[in-house]
C-alpha cells in the first residue's frame, strides 16, 4: 500500500460536499438468475463526495457501481443519476453514461487506436465536438495525468499504470459529473499503484464526485469522506473514514479490516 495508513491525514477540510444530490439509489435489488446479488440498496451520494466501497470479493460492490451507469441492469428499485431516472430507454441510458465516467480494473483502452484517439473518440462522436477542440481537451487531460508525450503511441506500448491514467483521462474528456472506479489499481504492479492513486487524489481535490471500489485503505483514509463496507449484497456499515477504520461497529467489518490490514 502506497499511503502509510498511520500518517494519513483526516478528511481534508477544504474538500467541501454540497447538499445537491448526485446519485440517489433507493430499494435497489438485483439478481443473477436465482442469485440475489444486491439486496435493498439505499444510497444517496451528494455532489463532491468521495466514497470508497470495500468488501470481500463477491459482495456485490462492483455490481453496485456498474448498475449506476447501466452496465448491469437492476430488477427492482430506483436509481436517479444527476436528476435523470435510470430506465430501460436507450437514449436515457446513453445520456446518463455520457455524464458518468468509468475506469475499469483492466483499463479497457481501445488497442487499435492511439492514446489521443482513445481520448477524442467519445467527445467527437457522442458530444459532436469538433476534432481540433476534442484534441485540445484530450491533450489538456493527458497533461493532467502527466503523459502528454505518449499521445501518439498505442495502448499496448504503455505500462499498466500509464494505461490506467490514460483511461482516467479518456473518461475526463467527456467532462463527466461523476466518476466511477472499479478496482482501478488491482491489476497493477505495486510500483505503478501510486501514480494512479496520485491522479485520483488530484481529481478528488478538483471536487469530482467519485465512487471507488478499491482495497487501497490508505487512499480511503486520505481522500474519502465516506467508506462503505458491503457484504453478501448488502451495505453493512458506512461511516467517515476515521471512525470506520478506528472503531468499526459491525463484527463483519472488524473481521474484514483485520484481514486486509493485518500485515
Amino acid at each position, binding site marked *: 500500500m502506497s499511503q502509510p495508513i498511520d500518517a494519513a491525514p483526516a478528511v481534508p477540510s477544504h474538500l467541501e460536499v454540497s447538499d445537491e444530490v448526485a446519485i440517489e439509489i433507493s430499494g435497489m435489488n438485483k439478481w443473477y438468475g436465482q442469485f440475489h446479488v444486491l439486496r435493498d440498496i439505499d444510497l444517496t451520494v451528494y455532489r463532491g463526495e468521495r466514497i470508497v466501497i470495500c468488501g470481500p470479493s463477491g459482495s456485490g460492490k462492483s455490481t453496485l457501481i456498474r448498475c449506476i*451507469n447501466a452496465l448491469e441492469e437492476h430488477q427492482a428499485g430506483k436509481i436517479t443519476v444527476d436528476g435523470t431516472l435510470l430506465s430501460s430507454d*436507450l437514449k436515457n441510458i446513453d445520456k446518463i453514461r455520457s455524464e458518468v465516467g468509468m475506469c475499469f480494473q483492466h483499463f479497457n483502452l481501445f*488497442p*487499435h487506436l492511439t492514446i489521443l484517439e482513445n481520448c477524442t*473518440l467519445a467527445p467527437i462522436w*457522442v458530444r459532436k465536438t469538433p476534432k481540433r477542440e476534442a484534441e485540445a481537451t484530450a491533450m489538456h487531460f493527458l497533461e493532467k495525468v502527466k503523459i502528454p508525450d505518449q499521445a501518439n503511441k*498505442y495502448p499496448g*506500448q504503455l505500462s499498466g499504470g500509464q494505461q490506467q491514467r490514460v483511461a482516467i483521462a479518456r473518461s475526463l474528456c467527456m467532462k463527466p459529473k461523476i466518476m466511477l472506479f472499479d478496482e482501478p489499481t488491482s491489476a497493477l504492479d505495486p510500483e505503478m499503484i501510486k501514480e494512479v492513486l496520485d491522479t485520483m487524489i488530484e481529481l478528488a481535490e478538483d471536487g469530482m464526485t467519485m465512487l471507488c471500489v478499491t482495497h487501497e485503505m490508505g487512499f480511503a483514509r486520505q481522500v474519502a469522506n465516506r467508506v462503505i463496507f458491503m457484504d453478501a449484497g448488502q451495505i453493512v456499515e458506512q461511516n467517515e473514514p476515521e471512525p470506520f477504520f478506528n472503531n468499526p461497529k459491525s463484527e463483519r467489518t472488524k473481521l474484514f479490516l483485520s484481514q486486509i490490514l493485518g500485515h
Partner: protein
Amino acid sequence: MSQGDHSVAFVRHDPLPPQAPPVSQAGVIGWLRTNLFSSIGNSIMTLITLYVIYALLAAIVPWIANGVWDASSIRECREQLQGVNAACWAVIEERWPQLVFGNYPPEHYGRAVLAFVLLFVALAPVLYFGLPRKMLWFTGLYPFLAYWLIWGGTLWIPIMALVGVVVGFVVFRLLEEKSFFGAMVAALAAALAFWIVLTAPLAEALAGVLPLALTPVASREIGGFMINFILGTSGIALSLPLGIMLALGRQSTLPIIKMICVIFIEFVRGVPLITLLFVASVMLAYFLPPGTNFDLMLRVIIMVTLFAAAYMAEAIRGGLAALPKGQYEAGDSLGLDYWQKMRLIVLPQALKISIPSIVNIAIGLFKDTTLVSIISMFDVIGMIRGPILSSTEWFGVYWELLGFAGVLFFVFCYGISQYSQWLERKLATDHR
C-alpha cells in the same frame, strides 16, 4: 566488481557490456549444419528430398521450356516437336481472346481492359490507407462505371442507379438522428423503390434527349476469365458487408432478427454452392413472373454473394467472440450508441482478427466461380472444356490449358494472400 570473502553482500557498480553470440550460431555452414545435417537421419532425409525435387524439375522444366509457341493446331505442334514430349503452348496464344474474354466483341476489348485497370485504381484507396481519402469517391463510382463499360448501353441506367443510391443516402441522413437501424431500412426501401419504379422510365427519357450510349454487349457474350473475375470481385465486395450485417444480427438481442440471421446462415451453409447455382440458372425462372428477363449473370452474382456472406458471417462472428467483453463495456460507459460502438470499436478489431478467415473465404469464392461452367456459362474452365477442347484443332490439349487456368488463378489468389499478410502486419498495434 569483487566479492568480499564469503560475504553474501554484493553490489554491482558497472553494468556488464553486451557480447556477440558464439560463432557456431552464424554463417552458411552453421545454418546448413543446424537445419539440414543435424543428424544421420536428417542428412538422409535431406538427400532424398533433394533427389525428389531434382526428379520433378527434370521432368517438368524441359516439358515447359521446350514447348511450341507457334502453331495453329495440335497436329502442327506434334510435327514441330518430332516425338519430343513437350508442351504445346500455341493453344494459349491462339485462343487467348477466348480464354480471357469469351465471345466478347473483339472491337470492344478495350472497354473490358479499361474496366479491369480502373478496378485497381478503385481498390487502391480501400487497400492502402495511406492514399488520399478523396480517391474513395472514385471507388464509390466505379461499380456503375464498370457496369457501363462492360455491358454498354446508355450511361443513364447506371447514373439513375447511382441516383437511387443518393436517394437512399439522403433518406438515411434525414432519419439517422432518430434511429440508425430504422434509417438504414428506410434508406434501403427508398433506394429499391427508386430503382424499380423510376430508373427505367427516367433513363429512357434522358437517353432520348442525350443518348451517351456504348454498343450494348449481352451477358451471354461475356466469357472466359472475365466472368470469373466479375463474379469473384462482385461476390467478395458484396458478401463482406452482408456478412458483417448477418454476424451482427446473429449476436442481436432482438429475437426475430437473430432468428432470421441464424436460419439464413445455417440454411445457406448447409446447401452446396452448385445447388444454389442450379436454382439460379433453372429454378428461378419458374418462380419469377413470366416475361421477366432477369439476367443469368445477375442471378449468379446474387447466389454467389449470399453463399459467401453466410461464411463471412461465421468468420466475423469468430472475431466478435474473440473480443474481450471489456471493449464493449468501455464503449458503453463512454455513452456511444450501438452502431457507434460497433463501427468504431468492435468491428475494426473483430475484422482484424477475422482477416485470415475472410481472405480464406474470398479466395475460395474466387476459385468457386469456375463452378458456373456446370450451369453452361462459358467461364475460363467452361471455355476450355467446351469450345476449345472440342475443336478439331486443339482436341486433347488438357495439360497446357488447365495448367494455364491454374496459373491464372494462382497469380490472383497468391496476390490476395500476400496482401492480407501485409495488412495483418500493418494493423498489429495491440501487442508489440
